[in-house]
């Protein structure tokens, strides 16, 4: 369960502070599929980084599964990321010149899982997201955008996290591939009961979710944003 209370984030650039998040409060229950929508620059990625324990809020509290994680150290946050969170990035972020399998198994390296088990779990996850077996050993730079994003989703699943955070996962994909990716998330939510948070600025993508949180200028707004 995710609960944020009055989260603020201020970046200081060249001595000039700019408040990107101006006090966000919301709650996402276990097993929910939530979309966070908002225009570009509204602070969506920033809140996702905080939810994913990649960053800490300047002010406010963040409770993950009931524990306050707002003030943890780098390494403590790394531990939480490893155990509870799977990330999917807009730009895939796969290791270059490494096979699909190796990419998927990468998070397990840090939980000291032995190699055979790593490979078995990685294969399982790749099959789960509909990645064809014959491409398992293809290097990441030999894959299409859709294939890369599936590898990235499989990677986000491999440590069996309860929460999957995806930052504009369809942003670099054509609409047909985007649909496949969103359907995969949909299925992971309904069949595997994982909490899924997808960030997007496309209403088309947000439709796959159960609920949408709208952000504008670092604040939650009630009404859906028009246009685009």
């Amino acid at each position, binding site marked *: 369960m995710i609960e944020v209370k009055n989260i603020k984030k201020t970046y200081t650039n060249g001595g000039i502070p700019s408040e990107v998040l101006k006090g966000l409060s919301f709650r996402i229950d276990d097993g929910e599929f939530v979309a966070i929508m908002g225009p570009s620059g509204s602070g969506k990625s920033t809140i996702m*980084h905080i939810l*994913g324990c*990649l*960053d800490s809020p300047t002010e406010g509290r963040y409770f993950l599964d009931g524990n306050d994680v707002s003030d943890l150290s*780098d*390494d403590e946050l*790394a*531990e939480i*990321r*490893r*155990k509870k969170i799977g*990330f999917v*990035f807009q730009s895939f*972020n796969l*290791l*270059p*010149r*490494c096979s699909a399998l190796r990419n998927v198994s*990468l*998070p397990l*390296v*840090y*939980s*000291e899982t*032995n*190699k055979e088990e790593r490979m078995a779990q990685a294969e399982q996850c790749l099959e789960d997201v509909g990645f064809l077996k014959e491409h398992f050993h293809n290097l990441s730079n030999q894959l299409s955008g859709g294939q890369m994003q599936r590898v990235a989703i499989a*990677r986000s699943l491999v*440590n069996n996290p309860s929460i999957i955070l995806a930052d504009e996962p369809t942003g670099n994909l054509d609409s047909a591939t985007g649909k496949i990716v969103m359907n995969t998330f949909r299925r992971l939510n309904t069949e595997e009961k994982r909490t899924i948070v997808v960030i997007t600025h496309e209403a088309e993508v947000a439709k796959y979710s159960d609920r949408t949180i709208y952000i504008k200028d670092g604040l939650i707004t009630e009404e859906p944003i028009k246009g685009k």
Partner: protein
Amino acid sequence: MKLTDIFEETYTALSANKSRSGLTILGIVIGISSVIVMVAIGQGSQASITSQIESMGSNLIAVTPGVAMSSNSRVSSGWGSAQSLDNDDLERLKAELVGVKGVAGELSGRYQVIANGNNTNTSVVGTEPAYAIVKNLGLASGDFISEQNLRNASRVAVLGPTVVEDLFGEGADPVGETVKINGLKFKIIGVSESKGGLMNQDDAIFIPLTTIQRSLVGRNRLSTIDIAAESTAVMSSVEEQTKAILLDEHDIANPDEADFQVMNQAEIVEAVSNITATLTLLLAAIAGISLVVGGIGIMNMMLTTVTERTREIGLRKALGAKRIDINRQFLFEAIVLTLLGGIIGITLGSLISFTISYFDLIQTKISVLSVVLAFGISAAIGIVFGYYPARRASALNPIEALRYE
């Protein structure tokens, strides 16, 4: 992160950029191998010089004429200027010294030598039969100077192998032939065994002491008195006796004013060892500079790698890598680079040292210590020069690292 995984990551990373890894390793290889070669040369010369000195005879004491200067600095002046040793000194030492294996007087000079139509300038050593015992000089053929030769001041000569080569050609046996020294005819009665190298015993002609004193120099002076003690244990006693006898013979009361000097072989070996040890250190230091340059190469490569792989580091962190995981991964890369360089460098250095010895250019000696040291140094270089880049990598903020273009 498991050790095997760190290895795998390191292997992947290093093989992804083989030429760069190779060049970086080359820097370490050059550094380590030059250290090995330089130290081998230094220690090799030390060993060969020491063994040459020791081959001249064991437990040797040499008395040379000298001029007393002050209490602790004496200047030795060679034959010709200082002439403080003579046959009387020699006779007294022979008569009175206890615990000696042999005492041999020596008077030497350089003369023009002609034989077999060839002509050379070499050292002519006038000495006694005991010289062969004292200086551990063996004969390749013929005989050494006899007591009878000495009594009769015979014109006989024992040639060193280098002289034989110069005058008669390699492998010739000139025993029975004659040689002209400073215009006087000498009969060749023997050829001494080769002792090798430095001390020039091979490039000398030995004639009776009486002959050189009467026929060539014309004075009863000595350039050296060589004394061989019976054992190492009595060395200092023999040295003390020698000084006392000679001071008495020369009527000198204050030992600081002695007009001769007594040196034992251990002192000579030590003095030479000190020089060669300094030389070794100097050579190693010069080679060490190239090792430092190699280390900087490692650091340079690692910093480049960290910058290039910023996104990857961000990703690894996002996926749950802790600081220590990242730190270890990069430190490991640096250490593997230097250790590879170290191993290749040690092999190459040993090979070069061996080749140098094999072709008789310089004596080399590879000590286990220098190999262990080189290995340790290369690992240390990996740690020292890899530390900063690895720390920089591990301290990267994952969000900023992921954004890095």
